[in-house]
């Protein structure tokens, strides 16, 4: 069984992890189901080059944001693991 200190570290890790999931998950929801579906009509009033903005989010923008979200998540988790010493030992 992990010691009390280790258990505390794990708890911190999990709390931070859930916090990041909530933040990034909110962005994920806003750009796809939000900008791409729910608010597409008002956004379409804005023109981005040859695109209506809502249409652009639905067909391109959301996908670009998804990529950024995954890499941001990977980065913050790797840092968090390093800080708390909970990462894998290099194989």
């Amino acid at each position: 069984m992990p010691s009390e200190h280790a258990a505390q570290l794990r708890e911190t890790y999990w709390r931070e992890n859930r916090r990041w999931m909530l933040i990034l998950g909110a962005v994920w929801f806003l750009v796809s189901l939000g900008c791409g579906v729910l608010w597409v009509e008002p956004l379409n009033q804005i023109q981005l080059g040859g695109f209506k903005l809502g249409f652009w989010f639905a067909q391109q923008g959301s996908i670009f944001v998804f990529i950024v979200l995954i890499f941001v998540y990977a980065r913050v988790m790797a840092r968090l693991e390093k800080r708390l010493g909970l990462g894998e030992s290099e194989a």
Partner: protein
Amino acid sequence: MTLTETTYWVVGASFAIYILIAIRARAGTTQEFYVAGKGIHPVANGMATAADWMSAASFISMAGLIGLSYNGYGGSVFLMGWTGGYVILAMLIAPYLRKYGKFTVPEFIGDRYYSDTARVVAVICLIICSVTYVIGQMKGIGVAFSRFLETDYETGLFSGMVIVFFYAVLGGMKGITYTQIAQFCVLIFAYTVPAIFISLQLTGQPIPQLGLGSTLADGTYLLQKLDQTLLDLGFQEYTTSVRGSTLNMAAFTASLMIGTAGLPHVIIRFFTVPTVSAARTSAGWALVFIAILYTTAPAVAAMARLNIVQTLQPEPGQHLAIEERPQWFRNWERTGLLGIEDKNSDGRIQYNANPDTNELVKLDNDILVLANPEIADLPHWVIALVAAGGLAAALSTAAGLLLAISSAISHDLLKRTFMPQISERQELMASRLAMAAAVLGAGYLGLNPPGFAAGTVALAFGLAASSLFPALLLGIFSKRVTREGAVLGMLAGLTVTLTYVFQHKGIMFIPGTQFLGDMPPNWFLGIEPNAFGVVGALVNFAVTLGVTRVTSPPPPEVQALVEEIRVPVSS
């Protein structure tokens, strides 16, 4: 060299590469056969995942679905749904299952829910999703062969089976991974080259993603022109035509997203990387590689649609004379993907939204990608490349699905449930036999597609979303959820989704057996059957959590397992 000869050379060369890889990447242990020895670099795994993911449907049909059937904006559900799932995978599923560190998805469900029943229910869900999905791939292989190589459908299907058999049975996950990387390169090249040419021709912009937002030769924006042209013909505006209702679009997108995150053949790809953090970055790379095709597809959709409309109607009110139709048009008429009927006998083709006067009576979705190189008048080798690309997409997805099916049989059913005493060598042999049987079974279903094959997408995604995804998610994020809850939840999700699809589409999709009729007024809140997975998932969550409340908590070792998979470090 004729077009057919060139195509034989290009496709033949790509197949030779796959076989060469298969010979070099044989699997010697069950660990290599199931998870490629867990030694795949995250970028390489990202590429393999992209090929695993992008099926014959993504490659051949998706642009047409967006550009024709869903008339533009409505098709966004596929674009967002089939990419957004990767964010869920990267944050909520892949890292923890990688940490768990075993071989299959049902294995996790069986261990987490401390029950062979849960394992077997998960195997059943997996097999239903994967088998319906693989039928579509086998059909894709047969169709691609028969259209480009002028073989008959059966010969094409057999050739594809032989190739898959070779590398999947010999190499398991290891062989599949390296061939998928090669297949990704072939398919992405084949998809983007014609798109770049068509974008250059229409807008002068070589990057199709930017071309979609650029101006045409006459100075108007491409999308504006397309909107106006379609409105004039009586269609809805391209950039705003909603599929069903806003709620239906949201449900459809959400179903595809969580279905993606619950599909076993995608999840097991993340078991092949060395570490938990590699599983996260690998999901990012997978989405990068997928996005190359998925952001090109909407450009291809709009540009090819505009090309077709302008071919038929060069100026408003002017219609193409039947005698003057271009060669590619005649070529694709022969395949039945295009069809005209001169209803008013004026010798010209009227194309519009009114079924009574529209004379382009057949316009298949697949035509947008398949005929693209010819419409843009590209050289033979590009057309040959599209054939090789379509085959690569179908073969790579088929192989991934077959591995998910065969490992569920040899590992979960045999080793973990019914014959735990078999040795590793025997299990490896069993996994090869299961793979061989799966290839033969898929081939049989490809030759005799059952009636429900048409509903493949609906079923595979709906079932993954409503049965496996909630069980995985709750298994990771709750220590309290019990086996009774999970088993009943999976069964409830499965039943609700199947019932909804069957009642509108027919039992096993047999026409005439639907008891509510397939029409919007009968849909629950206006949600179409393809979009129902998310409702099934909600039912699953509700049942699982409800039953959990009244059953006794999981044993301490299971709660310890959940603690353990949440952090990368091993204690």
